């Protein structure tokens, strides 16, 4: 395990030197600072009475601050979820391709590291990166909005962690794809496709009636059965962030299924890794 974690640590060190990651960190920090300076909220006895953004009054209802902040936290959760997963797909697409690049992979395989440790370490490193990013982004926005509105909650942060779990499943398939085609573009395409197909899969029950009963509907249901339910988890994350009721047993099934998909994809990659001669 120590070897696996060492691989993950090396990946994190490498990631910190990348412009993509630095740009993300700067973008989140800048957005929080701008919002901190531009947003003014007037809270009277726990009711949000007025909001000003960049000096302009934002017209809204006078209601309990907690109730008024629900749609804000919901919107933040959606932005962090889809934005985070999308950015993760783009920013982490070339980790796999670089890992298996000629020269580097031979060097790594010459070290006392097993192949599965190398693959799992890379996977854990990327997932750690996404968790840290989610915590930083969601944490900063949540603290800012909580300070301004007086509504303290950790729910948007939990929602952001759900985005990380979702990304982990998609990244498992991206990393596996790098073992078949060593290309950052292909890995990004696999990630992007899984993100879009995952949104569709989350609504498969609603979309299925659009297909003719019979072969076409059965094909659609079969094709989407194994895909991660990205939109379903995104909706649950938004509900969680905005303090709405969440069906936790259903969410747990989706999350376990999602993680099984990620690890299964990683196992496919491992199968290919074991067969491959470098």
């Amino acid at each position, binding site marked *: 395990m120590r070897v696996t974690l060492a691989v993950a640590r090396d990946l994190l060190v490498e990631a910190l030197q990348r412009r993509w990651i630095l740009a993300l960190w700067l973008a989140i920090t800048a957005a929080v600072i701008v919002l901190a300076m531009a947003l003014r909220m007037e809270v*009277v*006895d*726990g*009711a*949000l*009475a007025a909001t000003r953004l960049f000096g302009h009054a934002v017209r809204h*209802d*006078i*209601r*309990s*601050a*907690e*109730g008024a902040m*629900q749609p804000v936290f919901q919107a933040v959760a959606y932005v962090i979820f889809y934005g985070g997963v999308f950015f993760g797909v783009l920013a982490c697409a070339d980790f796999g391709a670089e890992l298996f690049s000629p020269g580097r992979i031979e060097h790594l395989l010459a070290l006392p590291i097993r192949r599965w440790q190398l693959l799992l370490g890379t996977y854990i490193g990327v997932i750690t990166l996404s968790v840290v990013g989610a915590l930083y982004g969601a944490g900063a926005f949540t603290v800012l909005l909580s300070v301004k509105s007086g509504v303290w909650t950790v729910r948007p942060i939990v929602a952001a962690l759900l985005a990380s779990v979702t990304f982990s499943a998609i990244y498992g398939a991206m990393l596996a794809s790098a073992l078949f085609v060593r290309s950052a573009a292909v890995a990004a395409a696999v990630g992007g496709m899984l993100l879009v197909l995952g949104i569709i*899969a*989350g*609504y*498969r*029950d*609603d979309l299925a009636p659009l297909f003719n009963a019979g072969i076409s509907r059965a094909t659609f249901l079969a094709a989407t*059965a*194994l*895909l*991660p*339910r990205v939109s*379903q988890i995104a*909706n*649950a994350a938004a*509900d969680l962030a905005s303090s*709405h009721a969440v*069906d936790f*047993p*259903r*969410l*747990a*099934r*989706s999350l*376990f*299924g*999602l*993680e*099984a*998909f990620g*690890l*299964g*994809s990683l*196992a*496919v990659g*491992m*199968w290919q*890794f*074991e*067969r491959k001669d470098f």
Partner: protein
Amino acid sequence: MRGIYWLVAAGTLIGGGGWLMTQGDAGAAAHERDELAFPTHQRANDLERETVRRTLAPLDTAAAAKDAVTHDPLLVALPPDADTALVFEAGTILRAPVGQAMLACVSAEDRAHMERSVIDPSKSWLDLADRVAFASSPAGELVAVQGKLDAIDITKLAPDAVVHTYGTSAKVYDVAADDARPELHVGVWSGSLVLTSHTRGLVLAALDRLDSGGSAKLAFDEREAYGEIYGVIGQADLERLAPPELRERVHDVAAHAEVHVDAIEEVLLVMDVEGSDAKQVEDLGKSLGAALAVGRLEAKREGEDALVRLMDQSRVRLYGDRRLRAEVAVPTDIMTRSMRGCGK
């Protein structure tokens, strides 16, 4: 064959994961919320109900003009200068949970007294009343009941009443004052409307308006007749109804309010308050919003989840000049809790 066990593991994980996710599939339904439908405007069924109730045609134009403006007799009966005029859809409310709880508060003796006045023993007094209205004007107060009231014998309710015929289709019952109660005057119009007041002039004026087919001026616009409770509340009554901590501010700011209540499931109140000073109205809105927020916090502290859910959708909205709209939701259970003891 190298690494075949990874392939087996992959198949098992992806297949098992797919099966698990299929168990959790719910589509958009899992994301749907119960948004409360506050009575903020006239809906199709309200419009249909209002149209059916516009049965009163002005006498001078009815014969000549086919498109003469017709009116709702109950609204015509209410004093046009009323500060407060509230109509209760009794027939609907009494069948709703909140109405059932209210009925439990009527004593058995009072019920028996009311039932004795019904001529047809197969009918209950409660089945006859469609709407009940209360109006308070400078001349006095008036209560109007609309329904199939020809089945009620007023003389059984007030045996010592003196009966007069009035106008074209009305009777007036005058009950003299005694030591226990002040004088009472009851007008019955066309067997469908009973008007009661301590001021005889109010009853007669209402009958005159009804006989003339109504006028353009009503206590409130007929298009505002939606919800299960609707009407206007004057400043004095608003102050009386306000929470103690807000009474002074309501007295200083609010001129009058329009009210609409949906009482079918939860009790959903929409109150449009109008004042004379925009800044003061805004401050009143903030105070009301704060009162709602404090109520929500208390409900949360006491674990009243249903109330918290409804309070989350309660709000105060400023609109136009010098106007604010309060939308407040209260669970029926909370409304009826204090009434349950009546049934014992």
